[in-house]
């Protein structure tokens, strides 16, 4: 790499680390680090303490799950990825490096090297989280295996985004020049999809008798699936090696696969340069609109602005204005093409299943699963992805603080914004799942009470997790990503998993009192009706438990409001 770029890389990393360390002078950061360090240290060195993800990686099924996750990650990058290059350059890099006499390849190398910092951090997190779970390798071998996986996935994501960028900006010519990777990927995704659909009745039958693992394992070794999944399997194999000889035999091909990505990424650098030039032109037309000009605006200034889908009345509670602003902002960032692909994809899968099984009940059962999976993902991962709240607005703290509202009112409005968005999405999936379940005679739970409980539980759970997320942004603005930019790609998943884990732990703690309340109320209902009502007894318990949660949140938000009013701006930006 160019010496100046190496200097920039090393000194930026050094100064960043110094900044992070200096934060530890603040008691709250120090306490958090000590608590986190104690937990993860115990996890790493105490072999009796179970890993939070233990069990997920055992045996051949573990390998299959990892292979599937990597395949889905790669495929979703191609299908849903951005049409802009994954090589993100900061404003300073654009202004100082692009006019400098540096080759395109050296810029790519610089970015790849820079990403290694994130990859290495993720490796550390994953090594700790996957400490056990069927892996018998020493710690450093697991670290190298994970490094190869994450680095390959990063390079692949960059390569895929460059192909997409080229195709999007050059139309047919762009598609032609990238025909080989596009054809390979489209064919692979289609074949995998079709094979799974064909095998669905058998898999479902196996699931009914508790042999789903074997069914999936058999499916993955059948042709043509085995051939398509081979490169993904190749990457995962070193992680599951039983001996160092086996590991050595597995790591070499995985390493070759990673190395093969490098020339692919640098070969497409012509498209990268054009895309970056486009981005620079966009920036010239549209300077940063927030004070946090360190991040480029994510909005395409030339795109027609969709109309607000609900009007804001001029009078009423002012906090509603903040909810309106955030919901509007979120809906404007939604990519309709992604939604269209999802709807079409679900339609295609549904039709394919129907042609295979020819049974509406079977189709309904598959539909339930197709709704339940994203619903579950939205509950767990949604608060990390939908960020139309303080995580977005905190960069404009000056503006927020100048509003004639209490700190707690602003915090509550910000949390309510994302809660409303997430709940609306979940309700949509819940409605479809409930409808489908009513056609499924083998539905796993009674449909009506489950749906009624979910109606109350989903917004309640969202409010808790989002209070945790917003509280983290307020208390630790130096650690939480603020603004539109969020770390993307599996290489940054270590950080995301860490955040999710912390959030889950705090959510669990917050759920203890309402769960006790719900259990007591349900028992009282059973006692009153003089017969066990099963899940029905939790229907009246759910809103009462939700009230208990509201009480908890009210106290927490009052406290966060005081933190908001006193947050040190220096943690977010230097004092003026």
């Amino acid at each position, binding site marked *: 790499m160019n010496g100046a770029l190496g200097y920039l890389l090393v000194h930026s990393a050094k100064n960043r680390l110094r900044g992070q360390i200096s934060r530890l002078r603040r008691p709250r950061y120090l306490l958090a680090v000590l608590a986190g360090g104690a937990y993860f240290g115990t996890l790493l060195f105490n072999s009796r303490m179970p890993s939070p993800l233990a069990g997920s990686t055992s045996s051949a099924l573990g390998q299959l799950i990892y292979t599937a996750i990597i395949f889905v990650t790669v495929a979703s990058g191609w299908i849903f990825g951005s049409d802009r290059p994954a090589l993100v350059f900061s404003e300073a890099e654009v202004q100082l490096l692009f006019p400098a006499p540096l080759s395109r390849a050296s810029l790519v190398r610089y970015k790849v090297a820079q990403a290694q910092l994130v990859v290495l951090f993720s490796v550390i997190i994953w090594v700790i989280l996957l400490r056990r779970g069927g892996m018998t390798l020493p710690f450093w071998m697991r670290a190298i295996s994970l490094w190869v996986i994450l680095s390959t996935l990063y390079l692949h994501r960059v390569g895929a985004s460059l192909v997409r960028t080229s195709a999007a900006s050059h139309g047919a010519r762009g598609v032609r020049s990238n025909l080989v990777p596009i054809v390979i990927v489209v064919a692979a995704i289609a074949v995998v999809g079709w094979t799974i659909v064909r095998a669905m009745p058998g898999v479902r039958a196996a699931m009914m008798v508790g042999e789903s693992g074997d069914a999936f394992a058999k499916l993955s070794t059948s042709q043509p699936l085995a051939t398509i999944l081979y490169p993904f399997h190749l990457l995962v194999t070193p992680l599951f090696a039983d001996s160092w000889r086996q590991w050595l035999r597995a790591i070499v091909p995985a390493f070759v696969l990673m190395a093969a990505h490098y020339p692919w990424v640098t070969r497409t650098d012509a498209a990268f340069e054009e895309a970056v030039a486009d981005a620079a032109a966009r920036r010239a037309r549209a300077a940063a609109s927030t004070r946090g000009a360190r991040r480029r605006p994510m909005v395409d200034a030339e795109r027609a*602005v969709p109309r607000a889908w609900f009007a804001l009345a001029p009078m009423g509670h002012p906090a509603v204005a903040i909810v309106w602003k955030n919901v509007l902002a979120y809906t404007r960032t939604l990519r309709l093409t992604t939604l269209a692909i999802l709807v079409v994809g679900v339609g295609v899968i549904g039709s394919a299943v129907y042609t295979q099984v020819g049974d509406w009940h079977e189709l309904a059962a598959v539909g339930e699963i197709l709704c339940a999976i994203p619903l579950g993902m939205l509950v767990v991962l949604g608060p990390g992805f939908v960020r139309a709240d303080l995580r977005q607005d905190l960069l404009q703290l000056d503006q927020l603080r100048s509003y004639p509202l209490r700190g707690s009112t602003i915090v509550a409005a910000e949390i309510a914004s994302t809660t409303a968005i997430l709940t609306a999405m979940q309700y949509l999936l819940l409605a479809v799942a409930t409808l489908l379940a009513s056609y499924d005679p083998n539905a796993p739970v009674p449909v009506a009470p489950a749906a009624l409980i979910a109606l109350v539980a989903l917004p309640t759970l969202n409010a808790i997790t989002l209070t945790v997320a917003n509280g983290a942004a307020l208390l630790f603005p130096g650690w939480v990503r603020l603004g539109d930019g969020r770390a993307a790609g599996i290489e940054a998943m270590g950080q995301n998993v860490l955040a999710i884990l912390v959030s889950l732990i705090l959510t669990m703690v917050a759920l203890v009192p309402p769960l006790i309340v719900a259990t007591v109320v349900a028992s009282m209902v059973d006692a009153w009706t003089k017969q066990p009502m099963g899940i029905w007894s939790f229907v009246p318990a759910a809103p009462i438990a939700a009230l208990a949660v509201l009480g908890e949140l009210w106290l927490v938000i009052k406290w966060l409001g005081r933190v908001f009013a006193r947050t040190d701006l220096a943690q977010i930006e230097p004092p003026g």
Partner: protein
Amino acid sequence: MIDVENLTKVYGDFTAVRALSFHVAPGEVLGLVGPNGAGKTTTLRSIAGIIVPTSGTISIDGDDIATAPERAKARLAFIPDEPQLFEHLTVEEHLRFIGRLYGVSNAPALIEPLLIEMELLEKRNALPAALSRGMRQKLAIACGLLHTPSALLLDEPLTGLDPAGMRRMKSTIASRARAGAAVVLSSHLLQLVEELCTRLLVMQRGRVIALGTFAEIVAERPQLAGMALEDVFLALMDEGERGDRAGAVP
């Protein structure tokens, strides 16, 4: 009106503003001038309730910004040097949003005239990313003016504006002051300060060097008589430096 009493703001071991006191009456335009790092922005942010002062009191129309922040903030507008806008709201939506926040019942009727005044009517459906630096500045100012504040805090309000925009902005500020607003204007443009401000507050390293009308400041320092504002400003900075060197300020 704006009342500031003994305002002090300390960051760690650095004192950004030191025992600052002043009063701005309705219709008055106070020019806040000083070199970079003098504490001008910190002063404005403290008055706006964005920064919590280390000590001292600030009140807007009699409402203390610390004890009655909502009432005080409802009557003031702070327009920062770098306009802060929401990137997913259009120009008009910004104004509707601000109207609701500040409870401006006739906001829909006020928006169009304000957009005309700020020459933003054609851009009413544009997102901030599609606006030039000057237009974004005008939008920030429009947001600040919508609720007809009685205290107006402006930090470098002419940044990014073209000559015609500057002239229009000066006229807007003057007309708001004539309508009874107490204005505090921070700027490095001494010509603007001279043209608009009825009084000056000269700051250096967080403390007051001079406060009063131009004539009063010069009258206290006969050696400055006959000098232009720029020369007076530089002489005051020298005076401050000498005071610091002599250890006049602890």
